[in-house]
């Protein structure tokens, strides 16, 4: 199939950037979206043009590196997948496709479609851990029984890949789904309860300082999240935060 691509090009963080139009031809419907981008880039290299920079790595939907806003939606129109798992059969011959980077003040563009997600790192560093040293003689793993229900919920929250689609999809650029997933993962486990209050306070404080917007419960993040992280996690974080603030 033949497609028209409108792609955000920006030389560097200080550059203004603009949408640039490209045409690609003979795209196979079995290609992944990123393979289509590879084909475009190969043709740009052949024409001595600078190829389009975009983040990607594992190309199997788990590393969280790929981050394209395609036709107005993070990771494109399909559900439950990342950009690298999106296939061209989702589109029709002759389509025009808009490809943009994640847009948020807290995610400044580095180049073209690559954004800086260090804000997520700093939020994790503010408390996304359990303070236990490696010693080789922590108590036996089975000495802490955890109900299957909570273990499963914790796992569901922990499935977050930190891609940032929640922020990209949110009309407010809120990072609540991301932060709440980490808060929830630990809040649901007995090991995590000890530092729960400090954790939620510090992580939320860092989140606010990074300049993400507020949550207005539109639920777009949950729909667009490639891992289906539930809004329940945001509610749980709100509870944890209230508990931590009041008590």
């Amino acid at each position, binding site marked *: 199939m033949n497609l028209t691509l409108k792609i955000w090009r920006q030389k560097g963080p200080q550059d203004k950037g603009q949408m640039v139009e490209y045409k690609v031809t003979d795209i196979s419907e079995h290609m992944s979206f990123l393979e289509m981008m590879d084909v475009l880039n190969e043709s740009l290299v052949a024409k001595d043009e600078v190829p389009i920079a975009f983040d990607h790595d594992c190309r199997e939907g788990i590393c969280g590196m790929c981050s394209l806003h395609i036709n107005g939606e993070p990771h494109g129109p399909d559900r439950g997948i990342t950009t690298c798992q999106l296939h061209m059969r989702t589109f029709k011959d002759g389509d025009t496709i808009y490809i943009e980077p994640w847009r948020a003040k*807290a995610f400044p563009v580095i180049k073209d479609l690559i954004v800086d997600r260090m804000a997520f790192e700093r939020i994790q560093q503010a408390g996304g851990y359990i303070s236990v040293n490696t010693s080789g003689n922590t108590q036996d793993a089975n000495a802490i029984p955890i109900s299957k229900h909570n273990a499963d919920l914790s796992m569901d929250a922990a499935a977050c890949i930190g891609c940032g689609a929640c922020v990209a999809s949110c009309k407010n650029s809120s990072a609540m789904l991301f932060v709440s997933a980490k808060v929830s993962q630990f809040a649901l486990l007995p090991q995590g309860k000890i530092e729960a209050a400090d954790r939620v306070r510090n992580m939320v404080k860092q989140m606010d300082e990074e300049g993400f*917007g507020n*949550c207005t419960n539109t639920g777009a993040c949950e729909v667009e999240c490639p891992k289906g992280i539930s809004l*329940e996690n945001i509610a749980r974080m709100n509870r944890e935060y209230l508990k931590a*603030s009041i008590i």
Partner: protein
Amino acid sequence: MSGFLSSSIARKVAMSLSALFLIIFLVIHLAVNLTSLFSEDVFNEMSHFMGTNPLIQFAMQPVLIFGVVFHFVMGFILELRNKKARNVKYAKFNGAASASWMSRNMVVSGAVILAFIVLHFIDFWIPEINTKYILGDMSGVLPGEEGYRYFEELQHKFVNPLRVGAYVVAFILLGLHLAHGFQSAFQSIGFNNKYTKCVKNLGTIYSIVIPLGFIIIALCHHFNH
């Protein structure tokens, strides 16, 4: 608790609590108004009680006004901050793909409701305050007439079809605001569990029934006058 309102979650919780308070208020307001359809006397009695009881006038009313003002001011502040969180806009943003119109446009429905409240205050509240506290007439009776004045004033307001039209539009927007706001308020205070489905259904019913009630009242008085 110091600096509590400086955090994003705390602001959301404050929005939610003020919303829940207004949700309860709307039920009471509708209940009182509904009586006007069935009995002029009951409506008058209740209106007089509400309008003259010191507890309601000097404790509840200021709280309500604070709640309304707070909800609006905070709502607009949050909207401004949220807009700032995305400094470069998308060339194409398909918000409809993942979230309802209502949830994405709370500030629009909110602004319409604000405009309505201004109109509503001019229509009812300011004349009331003027009569009671400036002119000092606490009787609830028009000079030279028998019985309370409230019902008649109510009917009089709904003569003008433009005003009725404005009311109906505002109530529809109120419904849309509530359709998202009701369940959103619960989510914000951390209420999301096995009863959430129930809350969502209740929210849908609430967001239809309450505005519809007000619309019916307005239309009835308009056509029955």
